[in-house]
């Protein structure tokens, strides 16, 4: 239990996120209304995904540095959890946009085609598909060392692609997402101070939850490897 303090921090932060995130007063913005509370949950998923992919890339570099297969397992499991949280971010975003961006006055198809042009949606899809390809690439190579080396290099490329796909390009093209002029999710001068008090703990809490799940998966896959060796 010596290493479990951060798990307690994670639980406390998530409880705080849920209680404060649902109770604080949020500014009543046009079309958004009360749904801006989703900043703590939907955006939290993407922040968690970014954290996990970052740790995955760092471990890929560490593998290339040391050729220790342990880091290959780390990189793989962090990428898998990152994909999980990315899919959660996508799903929650789909729910959110159905009641904010989707225009109830237009026919469903017109409304959808307007949203499908949203560059951040396409960018996030590209980023996730690149990571899906990472999994496919890994599992198609049988030799352990070759697999670890090739997938570590690919992992770094995939991480590099994340930035244009979900951070840069959606800011250049006309987008429904906020953030055309700066970075509203990280630097909120235009939205209430109160929300920022919940936002950062929320991001940290979700990221820690992702790390927690991944450490369990890592330990399990190391056990599996050890059993194969015996």
């Amino acid at each position, binding site marked *: 239990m010596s290493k479990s303090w951060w*798990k307690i921090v994670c*639980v406390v932060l*998530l*409880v705080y996120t*849920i*209680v404060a995130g*649902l*109770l604080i007063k949020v500014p009543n913005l046009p079309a958004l209304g009360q749904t801006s509370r989703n900043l703590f949950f939907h955006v939290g998923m993407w922040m968690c995904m970014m954290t996990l992919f970052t740790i995955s890339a760092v471990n890929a570099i560490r593998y290339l540095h040391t050729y220790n297969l342990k880091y290959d397992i780390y990189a793989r499991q962090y990428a898998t959890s990152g994909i999980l949280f990315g899919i959660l971010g996508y799903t929650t975003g789909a729910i959110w946009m159905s009641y904010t961006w989707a225009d109830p006055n237009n026919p469903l198809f017109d409304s959808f085609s307007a949203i499908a042009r949203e560059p951040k949606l396409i960018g996030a899809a590209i980023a996730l598909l690149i990571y899906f390809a990472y999994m496919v690439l890994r599992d198609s190579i049988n030799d352990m060392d070759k697999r670890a080396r090739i997938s570590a290099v690919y992992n770094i490329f995939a991480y590099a692609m994340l930035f244009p796909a979900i951070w840069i390009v959606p800011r250049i093209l006309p987008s429904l997402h906020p953030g055309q002029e700066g970075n509203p999710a990280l630097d909120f001068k235009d939205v209430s101070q109160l929300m920022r008090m919940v936002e950062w703990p929320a991001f940290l809490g979700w990221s820690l939850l992702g790390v*927690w*799940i991944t450490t*369990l998966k890592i*330990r*399990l896959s190391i*056990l599996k490897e*050890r*059993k194969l060796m*015996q």
Partner: protein
Amino acid sequence: MDNYLENTFINIKRTKVDAMRKLKPLLLMLLLLFISGIMNAQDGSKESTVGEFMRSDQRSYVVIAVILTILAGIVLYLVRLGRRIGKMEREGQSGSRQ
């Protein structure tokens, strides 16, 4: 029949069965199912303070209670999973030493 009675008693031994272990989660689930009933049972005529609090502010606290319960379930699951993996790790280490 009576002749065998003595022997039958000898053969029966009280052993701990797995039934209780299997029943435990079921009992816990039943407790959780009825917990709201238990909380409301204290006061029939007058509203209890818990109920009063939960019904205030357009009953939004109910949603928070639900989400927190889900979170608690997930966290408990993760903690138990971690313990089980830790046990497996210790078993694997002692196995490899032999």
